[in-house]
C-alpha cells in the first residue's frame, strides 16, 4: 500500500496540514504536496481510466511527463478538466475528481472496451463502420463520439483574470536544475541580462533528490548558495512556476507563469503569458526517464524509478511497501537505495543487462538488495493494483522463472533529454548509441534572424548524465550565450561528482523475444492505450513513416504528447521495419511543452477589452439617446435612435421622414479625412482617383472614385481643394486607414521623388451632417457665417464660425436634401452637436443613424461602397463612367480596366429595381435566366445589391446589377426566393426620388 512515511519530505511542511476532496472523499495532505503525492499518501493508487480501453490508471511519474494522473479540478467558474496531478500543488479545500469513467472510478462500464480490445486494434475504425453508409451519422459516429474526450467540458464562464508580459533579455535560461543554475551563473557573471525560469516551485531539479557533490559540498548546499548568489545579481532575474512553453523564430519564447492557482488566498491574475525576446535561449530542461515495455506495465503501481524516488525523498511518500526495481541502467539503483534507506523493502532489482557493475550496483548489493542480472519481467500481476511480478530471462521469450510478490514496480529504461524547446524551431537531433538517447545535434541547431544558432542546450538536456559533465556543459553554454551577446566570459564551472556509472544497454521490449500475447499487453502510450503490438501492426500495414505510425496508432498524441512513449514507440517501429533508430527519426516537437490555457493566450483581451471600440466625440450622447450601435470596422456608429415604444424599423422610418420633411443630424465623424499637400499633390491625386483632381478649383468639392491597381472600386468620397497645393480627401468610414496606407505606399515606394505629404486627420474633427429642408435655417439661426445658396453653393466649402464654433462647412449631400457637412475640432464635437440639437428644436431636428442614411442614399440612387461594390466591381459597372477621366494617361486601375474581362459588354450593370407588387426585394437575391450551365446550376442574369422599404415612397426600392440592365428599362425579371416562390421586378432608373435634384440645389 502507498503511504506517508513518518519522517523526511524535502518539500513538505508537516506543520501545515491541508484537507482536500477526491471523488467526494475528504482526504488529508500537507502543504508542499502535489495532488499526486497526497493521493499516494492516502493510498489512492487508482487515479483515472485510460482513453480507449478504460483501463485502470495510477500515477507513473512525478512531473510534467505524467500521462495518467489527470483530474477534473475545481467547481463552477474555476472548473478545469485534464489537470495533471503531478504538477498541481495542493491547497486547502482543493476539489478533484477522476475522469473518463461511469458510473465510478472503481466500477467503470467502459472497461468492457478492454475486454473487446482484441477487436479494437490501432486504426480499427478505418476498417469498420463502413457499411451501411447511413449508419455512420446516426449510429457509428455518435457511439464513437460518446467515448471521446477525457475531462468534462466546463460549463461556466471563467472569472479569473490573465495577463501578458513582454520581456527582453540577452539570455533566457529554461530550467532551474543545477544545469540551469550553472548556466545562469555563467551568463550572469559575464554581465548578460539573464532570465532564469523553472516550471516547478523548487530550484535544483533532480540533484535535490539525488544529492551529488558539487564543489565539494552536498548538492543542496550548492543549490541554496547559488540561488542566493543569483538573487543578488542585478542583471539576473529568476522565476519559479514558469514554464518555457515554446521557442519561436527570431528568439521569441513563450513562457507560462502560474501565479495564484497554487494558493487561492493570493490576489491578482491567475496566469501570465510571457512573450520573451531573447538573443539566446539555453535549454536546461533536464531529461525524462523512459518506461520499459513489459506485459502489464500499465497496472497501477508500476512507476518510473525516478518518480518513486522523488515521492520518497521530496514528499516522504511510498508508493508501495515492496518495490521491485527493473532497469537497463545504473540510475535506477538509486531508487532501490533510496527506498531501502527509507526503510522500505526492495525484494529484487531485475536488471536486463547480463553483468551490471557500477558503483551504485555495488552499493545496492552491499545494502543487501538482491540483483537479478540478465533478467526481465515476463508479466506484472494485478488488476487495479500491482500484486507481483513474474520474472524471466531477458534474452528469451518470457518463460517465467520466478514470481515475486510486490505492490510496486520501479522501472527505468534510461533517460531521454528534454529536447522539445531545442526542436520547436527546427533544431535537429542526433542518436547517441552509447547513451541510448536522442540529443541535440549542435551542428544542426535552430538559427535566428542573424543566421546564428540561438538555442543552446545545457546539462542533461544536452545528453550529459554525470553531474560533472552536466555542470561543465551548462556553464559553457551560459558563457557561450553571454559571449554571443557581447559579454566577456568569467569564472569557472562548478565541479560535480557522483558515483561512476556503467553503460546502459538498449532494451525496447522485455523479454526480447516476447510473443504476440505479451506484446498486446505492453503499453507504450498509457493515456491513448497504444501498445507495442499496435505499432508493429502499423509497420506491417505499411504505415512505415514515424508520422504515419503516430497518426495511425495515436501514439504520442495524448495530453502528455508522448513524453514517456515517443522514443519507446519509435524504437519498436524501427525494430519492426528492420531500420536503425536514427533512420526512422522522431515525430515533430511542437509547442507548447505542456498545455497552456486558452485564457492565458487571450490575456486581458476579453469582454470590454476584447477589441478596441472606436468612439466618436458624440458617442456617449448617442448611447444616452437610444442609439442602437452598429460596428463599422472598429467604429461603433448609431444604426438608429430608437425611442420608447418604437421598433428599430419604426425609428428608421421616422428618421428618414423627418429628415426629408424637416431636418436630421448625422454624426459623420467617422468618415476619413486625409490632407494631401505639396507641389505634386494634384498630380498624385490624379493617379489615386479615376477623376481629375488637379483641376479642382480652390473652394470647390468633387466626388471622387478610387480604384485598386487591379481595377476594382475600393473607395469613394468627396475631395475638397483647400489651397493651391492642399487637398482634403474624404474616405468611407472603414476606408480611412486603408486609403491612407494606400497613399503612403504609392508615395514611398513608387513615386518617392514626388513632393507630397499626407496626413490622416480623421480624428481631429467631429463632423456633423445637417440635412433637410430646414438645414439652412438652423445654421442661420446659430449664425456666424453666410451659408446662403449664393455664397456657399452646392459642392463648395468654406471656413468660418457657426454658433461660435470654428467650423469648416461643406455643401455636399448624400441624401438628396439640402445638406451641410460641418467639421469642428473633435474636442468641441459634443458641444457643437448639443448646440445644433438645442437650436434645431424649433425646426424639428432629430438625429438619424446609418440605416436612415443608407435608405436616403438608395432613394437617390447613390452607390455605397460595400453594397454596390464587393471587390469585384469596376466603376463602369455602376454607370460611373462620367467619373473616369478620359483625359488622363494613367491612374491606378486604368490598365487593369483595359483587360478583356473588364471590357466585356456582358458585365452586369447597375439599374434600379421595383417589384411589381411594391414589396421589398430580398437582399442578395439573384435574377434567373433560362436554362442551366455546364455544371447544372441555374443560369442567372443579375442580383440585388441594395434593397429597402422606402419610407418616402411607401414602397420597396432596390438597386441591382443586371445583364445589359441599362438597355432593358421596363423589362421584368424574376428573383426566386428561398421559399420556392419568386418575385417579379421591373428594371427602372436607379434614382427613385427627386430625379431633378430640386431639393438639394436650393
Amino acid at each position, binding site marked *: 500500500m502507498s503511504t506517508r512515511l513518518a519522517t523526511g519530505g524535502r518539500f513538505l511542511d508537516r506543520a501545515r496540514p491541508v484537507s482536500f476532496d477526491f471523488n467526494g472523499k475528504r482526504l488529508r495532505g500537507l502543504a508542499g504536496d502535489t495532488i499526486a503525492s497526497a493521493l499516494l499518501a492516502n493510498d489512492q493508487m487508482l487515479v483515472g481510466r485510460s482513453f480507449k480501453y478504460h483501463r485502470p490508471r495510477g500515477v507513473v511519474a512525478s512531473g510534467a511527463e505524467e500521462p495518467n494522473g489527470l483530474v477534473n479540478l475545481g467547481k463552477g467558474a474555476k472548473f478545469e478538466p485534464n489537470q495533471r496531478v503531478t504538477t498541481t500543488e495542493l491547497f486547502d479545500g482543493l476539489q478533484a475528481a477522476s475522469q473518463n469513467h461511469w458510473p465510478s472510478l472503481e466500477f467503470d462500464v467502459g472497461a468492457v472496451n478492454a475486454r473487446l480490445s482484441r477487436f479494437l486494434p490501432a486504426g480499427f475504425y478505418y476498417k469498420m463502420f463502413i457499411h451501411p453508409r447511413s449508419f455512420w451519422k446516426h449510429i457509428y459516429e455518435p457511439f464513437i463520439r460518446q467515448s471521446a474526450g477525457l475531462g468534462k467540458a466546463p460549463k461556466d464562464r471563467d472569472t479569473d483574470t490573465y495577463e501578458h508580459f513582454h520581456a527582453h533579455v540577452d539570455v533566457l535560461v529554461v530550467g532551474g536544475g543545477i544545469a540551469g543554475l550553472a548556466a545562469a551563473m555563467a551568463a550572469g557573471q559575464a554581465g548578460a541580462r539573464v532570465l532564469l525560469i523553472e516550471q516547478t516551485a523548487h530550484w535544483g531539479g533532480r540533484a535535490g533528490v539525488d544529492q551529488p557533490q558539487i564543489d565539494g559540498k552536498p548538492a543542496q548546499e550548492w543549490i541554496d548558495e547559488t540561488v542566493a548568489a543569483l538573487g543578488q545579481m542585478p542583471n539576473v532575474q529568476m522565476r519559479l512556476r514558469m514554464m518555457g512553453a515554446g521557442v519561436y523564430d*527570431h528568439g*521569441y519564447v513563450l513562457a507560462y507563469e502560474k501565479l495564484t492557482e497554487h494558493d487561492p488566498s493570493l490576489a491578482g491574475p491567475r496566469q501570465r503569458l510571457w512573450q520573451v525576446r531573447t538573443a539566446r535561449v539555453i535549454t536546461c530542461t533536464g531529461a525524462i526517464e523512459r518506461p520499459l515495455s513489459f506485459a502489464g506495465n500499465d497496472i497501477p503501481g508500476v512507476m518510473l524509478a525516478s518518480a518513486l524516488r522523488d515521492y520518497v525523498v521530496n514528499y516522504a511518500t511510498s508508493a508501495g511497501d515492496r518495490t521491485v526495481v527493473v532497469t537497463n541502467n545504473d540510475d535506477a539503483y538509486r531508487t532501490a537505495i533510496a527506498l531501502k534507506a527509507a526503510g522500505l523493502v526492495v525484494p529484487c532489482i531485475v536488471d536486463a543487462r547480463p553483468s551490471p557493475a557500477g558503483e551504485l550496483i555495488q552499493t545496492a548489493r552491499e545494502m543487501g538488495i538482491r540483483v537479478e542480472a540478465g533478467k526481465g519481467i515476463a508479466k506484472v500481476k494485478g488488476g487495479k493494483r500491482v500484486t507481483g511480478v513474474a520474472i524471466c530471462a531477458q534474452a528469451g521469450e518470457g518463460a517465467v522463472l520466478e514470481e515475486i510478490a510486490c505492490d510496486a514496480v520501479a522501472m527505468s529504461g534510461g533517460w531521454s533529454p528534454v529536447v522539445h524547446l531545442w526542436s520547436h524551431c527546427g533544431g535537429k537531433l542526433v542518436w547517441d548509441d552509447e547513451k541510448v538517447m536522442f540529443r541535440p545535434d549542435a551542428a544542426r541547431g535552430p538559427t535566428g534572424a542573424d543566421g546564428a544558432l540561438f538555442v543552446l542546450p545545457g546539462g542533461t538536456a544536452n545528453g550529459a548524465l554525470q553531474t560533472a559533465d552536466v555542470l561543465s556543459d551548462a556553464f559553457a553554454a551560459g558563457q557561450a550565450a553571454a559571449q554571443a551577446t557581447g559579454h566577456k566570459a568569467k569564472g569557472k564551472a562548478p565541479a560535480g561528482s557522483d558515483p561512476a556509472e556503467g553503460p546502459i544497454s538498449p532494451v525496447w521490449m522485455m523479454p526480447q523475444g516476447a510473443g504476440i500475447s505479451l506484446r498486446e499487453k505492453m503499453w507504450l502510450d498509457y493515456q491513448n492505450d497504444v501498445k507495442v503490438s499496435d505499432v508493429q501492426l502499423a509497420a506491417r500495414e505499411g504505415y512505415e513513416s514515424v508520422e504515419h505510425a503516430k497518426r495511425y496508432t495515436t501514439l504520442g498524441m495524448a495530453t502528455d504528447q508522448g513524453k514517456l512513449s515517443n522514443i519507446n514507440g519509435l524504437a519498436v517501429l524501427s525494430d519492426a521495419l528492420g531500420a536503425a533508430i536514427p533512420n526512422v527519426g522522431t515525430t515533430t516537437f511542437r509547442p507548447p511543452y505542456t498545455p497552456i490555457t486558452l485564457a492565458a493566450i487571450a490575456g486581458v483581451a476579453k469582454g470590454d477589452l476584447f477589441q478596441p471600440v472606436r468612439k466618436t466625440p458624440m458617442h456617449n450622447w448617442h448611447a444616452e439617446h437610444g442609439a442602437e450601435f452598429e460596428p463599422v470596422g472598429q467604429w461603433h456608429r448609431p444604426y438608429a435612435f430608437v425611442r420608447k415604444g418604437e421598433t428599430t424599423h419604426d425609428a428608421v422610418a421616422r428618421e428618414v421622414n423627418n429628415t426629408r420633411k424637416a431636418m436630421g443630424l448625422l454624426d459623420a465623424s467617422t468618415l476619413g479625412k486625409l490632407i494631401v499637400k505639396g507641389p505634386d499633390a494634384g498630380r498624385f491625386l490624379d493617379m489615386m482617383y479615376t477623376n481629375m483632381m488637379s483641376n479642382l478649383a480652390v473652394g470647390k468639392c468633387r466626388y471622387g472614385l478610387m480604384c485598386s491597381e487591379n481595377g476594382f472600386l475600393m473607395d469613394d468620397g468627396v475631395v475638397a481643394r483647400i489651397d493651391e497645393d492642399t487637398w482634403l480627401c474624404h474616405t468611407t468610414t472603414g476606408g480611412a486607414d486603408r486609403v491612407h496606407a494606400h497613399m503612403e*505606399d504609392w508615395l514611398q515606394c513608387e513615386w518617392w521623388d514626388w513632393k507630397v505629404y499626407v496626413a490622416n486627420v480623421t480624428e481631429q474633427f467631429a463632423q456633423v451632417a445637417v440635412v433637410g429642408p430646414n438645414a439652412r435655417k438652423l445654421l442661420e439661426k446659430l449664425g456666424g457665417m453666410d451659408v446662403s445658396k449664393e455664397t456657399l453653393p452646392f459642392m463648395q466649402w468654406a471656413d468660418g464660425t457657426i454658433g461660435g464654433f470654428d467650423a469648416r462647412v461643406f455643401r455636399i449631400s448624400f441624401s438628396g436634401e439640402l445638406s451641410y457637412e460641418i467639421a469642428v475640432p473633435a474636442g468641441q464635437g459634443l458641444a457643437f452637436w448639443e448646440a445644433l440639437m438645442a437650436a434645431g428644436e424649433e425646426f424639428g431636428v432629430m438625429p438619424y443613424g446609418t440605416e436612415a442614411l443608407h435608405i436616403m442614399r438608395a432613394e437617390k440612387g447613390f452607390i455605397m461602397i460595400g453594397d454596390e461594390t464587393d471587390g469585384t466591381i469596376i466603376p463602369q459597372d455602376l454607370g460611373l463612367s462620367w467619373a473616369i477621366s478620359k483625359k488622363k494617361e494613367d491612374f491606378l486601375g486604368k490598365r487593369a480596366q483595359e483587360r478583356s474581362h473588364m471590357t466585356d459588354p456582358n458585365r452586369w450593370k447597375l439599374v434600379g429595381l421595383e417589384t411589381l407588387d411594391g414589396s421589398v426585394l430580398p437582399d442578395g437575391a439573384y435574377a434567373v435566366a433560362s436554362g442551366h450551365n455546364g455544371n447544372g446550376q441555374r443560369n442567372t442574369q443579375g442580383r440585388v445589391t441594395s434593397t429597402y422599404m422606402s419610407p418616402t415612397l411607401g414602397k420597396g426600392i432596390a438597386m441591382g446589377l443586371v445583364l445589359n440592365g441599362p438597355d432593358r428599362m421596363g423589362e421584368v425579371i424574376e428573383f426566386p426566393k428561398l421559399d420556392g416562390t419568386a418575385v417579379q421586378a421591373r428594371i427602372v432608373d436607379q434614382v427613385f426620388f427627386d430625379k431633378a435634384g430640386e431639393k438639394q440645389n436650393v
Partner: protein
Amino acid sequence: MLTFTCPYCGVHADETELAPGGEAHLKRFGPGSEDEAFEDYLFKRENPKGMHFERWRHAYGCGKWFLAARCTTTLEVFGTYPAQTTEPPQEIKDKISGKRPGWTWRLFS
C-alpha cells in the same frame, strides 16, 4: 515571430509592429503595357524557397515602408533597406553571396 530593424528609425521592431507587403522591387506596368507584362506585375510572384526580397511597413512605428532580404526557409534576415530604390544595396548582396554563393533572384545575383 519575425523581427526587423527599421532602416528609417532604427527601431528593432517586433513583427506585431509591422505590416507585411509582399514582394519587393516590382516594376509597375501601366496603360498601354502588354497583357503579359501587366499580369506578371500584378500576380506572378517569385515566391522562392530560399532568398527573397520583400516589403514591410513599420506600421505601428514611423510608418515607413522598407525592404528586407530574408530567406524563406531559415528566416534569416540579411538586411533591411529603404524602399526608395530599385535594387538591393551592394552590401546586402555581398552578405548574401558570402553565405549563399550562387544565389539569384530575378535579375539580381
